[in-house]
């Protein structure tokens, strides 16, 4: 392990750190430029630049050490990432009981099903060096999908409390009363991924393809592989968005089919009367 670390801190790493210093210098110049217009981001920029560099160096070290690690280690790392993603997504619906577990299960299901399918079909090898970066991309997109779906679902339901309660008052099942809002929440969560797919290769050449080409793979194969990754991101996002809203739907109603979700400012159930 030490030998591996020593190998890494070679010429490459020194050059890389020098280049990173250049990148930081450019960011610092932009921060000063912002200051000229009284936009003060020095502190935040310094902290996030430092954090970003340290995090990426650490990830690099972990990958270097675990380069040929087993599937189990890879799965463990992805599980931790899923946990972190769930904490981030759950922040969107603070105050709702069980939000963290709701986000964890929906992200785990979306990313898990897709990664398992990729491993099973051989489009993803189980080495940590491959599993973790690809897995992290899928988890990150599932996280965004989860956050967008639950946030949109909450916004739609709280904007339509009257319609939902009118439907409940006519004897509708809770699921029926929020069906249109579930649909639009899942759609809204998929939209960024659909746009991503459409702009693939036109507006942006994503990292996986760029990396593969840089490291000598055939550009055509790299392009096809990148398409597969984005398609898998889309699939994982769909599963996550669906599961997150369906799980949330259960939580916004009581056992007696009463709507529990209210606009934040209304702490009483009805207009004063």
């Amino acid at each position, binding site marked *: 392990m030490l030998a591996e670390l020593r190998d890494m801190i070679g010429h490459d790493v020194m050059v890389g750190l020098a280049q990173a210093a250049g990148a930081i210098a450019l960011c610092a110049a932009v921060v000063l430029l912002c200051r000229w217009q009284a936009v003060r981001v020095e502190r935040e920029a310094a902290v996030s630049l430092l954090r970003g560099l340290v995090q990426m160096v650490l990830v690099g070290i972990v990958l270097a050490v675990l380069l040929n690690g087993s599937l189990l280690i890879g799965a463990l790392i992805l599980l931790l990432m899923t946990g972190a993603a769930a904490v981030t997504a759950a922040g969107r619906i603070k105050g709702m009981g069980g939000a963290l577990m709701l986000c964890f299960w929906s992200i785990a299901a979306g990313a898990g099903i897709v990664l398992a399918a990729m491993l099973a079909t051989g489009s993803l090898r189980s080495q940590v060096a491959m599993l973790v970066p690809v897995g992290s991309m899928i988890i990150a997109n599932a996280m965004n999908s989860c956050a967008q779906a639950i946030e949109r679902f909450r916004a739609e339901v709280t904007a339509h409390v*009257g*319609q939902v*309660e*009118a*439907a*409940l*008052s*006519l*004897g*509708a*099942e809770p699921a*029926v009363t929020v069906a*249109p809002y579930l649909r639009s929440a899942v759609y809204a969560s998929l939209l960024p991924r659909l746009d991503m797919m459409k702009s693939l290769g036109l507006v942006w050449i994503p990292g996986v393809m760029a990396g593969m080409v840089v490291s000598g793979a055939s550009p055509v194969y790299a392009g096809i592989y990148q398409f597969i990754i984005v398609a898998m991101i889309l699939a994982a996002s769909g599963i996550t968005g669906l599961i997150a809203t369906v799980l949330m739907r259960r939580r916004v109603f*009581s056992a*007696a*089919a*009463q*709507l529990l979700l209210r606009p934040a400012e209304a*702490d*009483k*159930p*009805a*207009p*004063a*009367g």
Partner: protein
Amino acid sequence: MTTTAPSKDPGGAGLSAQFPERSERLPPGALETRHLSRQIGGRRLVSDVSVQIGRGEIVAVVGPSGAGKSSFLRLLNRLDEPTSGTVLLQSIDYRTIAPQELRRRVGMVMQTAYLFPGTVAANIGFGPRQRGQVLPHDNIVALLERVGLAGFADRDIGHLSGGEAQRVALARTLANAPEVLLLDEPTSALDEALVRGIEELILGIVRERQMTCIIVTHNRAQAERMAGRTMLMEAGRLVTIGPTAEVLHAG
């Protein structure tokens, strides 16, 4: 109509009830609240309200803003959960009735119509559809005629005036053939000129169908025109209930 008992086939009872000329009566709709209370945080919205309301009776609920009138009404179809106490529907504790069935039997018309996107006919058929029944077009037409909206079946709800929308909301609730009708300020969103028309419409239908009716209103004149008895509420409590004229003139 088939020979199925109305309790097992509420839709069957509902279909017959769409025809005002039918003399057949719905089952009695007596309603009783027992120490009914609802509290959120430290705030008592409804506090220990016990009343008995007879079948076919029209009762108004009056009181200042924030007195808990709407909160009380929302407990009656269990749109909100009582913190303590309960409601008896025909002497049966309403917590033993499935909420969907309870809300079919205890219909509610809100202050705002809250129609669903689509046609007027789709809105009218919404309640029966929840029980897997398709309300025949003739029944929809008859209901719309009854609320003064003949020929409106295929209109999009986006093209309705406020008064028309409120009539559709009333017809939509009636399509469920409820035993009890809860009205939450049903005319407060309407122009003054339309109020009397809607009041007379509601009175006529409630009498025809022998429905038990509870109407929340901030308008004392409306309570006098519509209700035999009136409940006066203040700070979530029932101050008094009695003949409308007595309650209003004592207050």
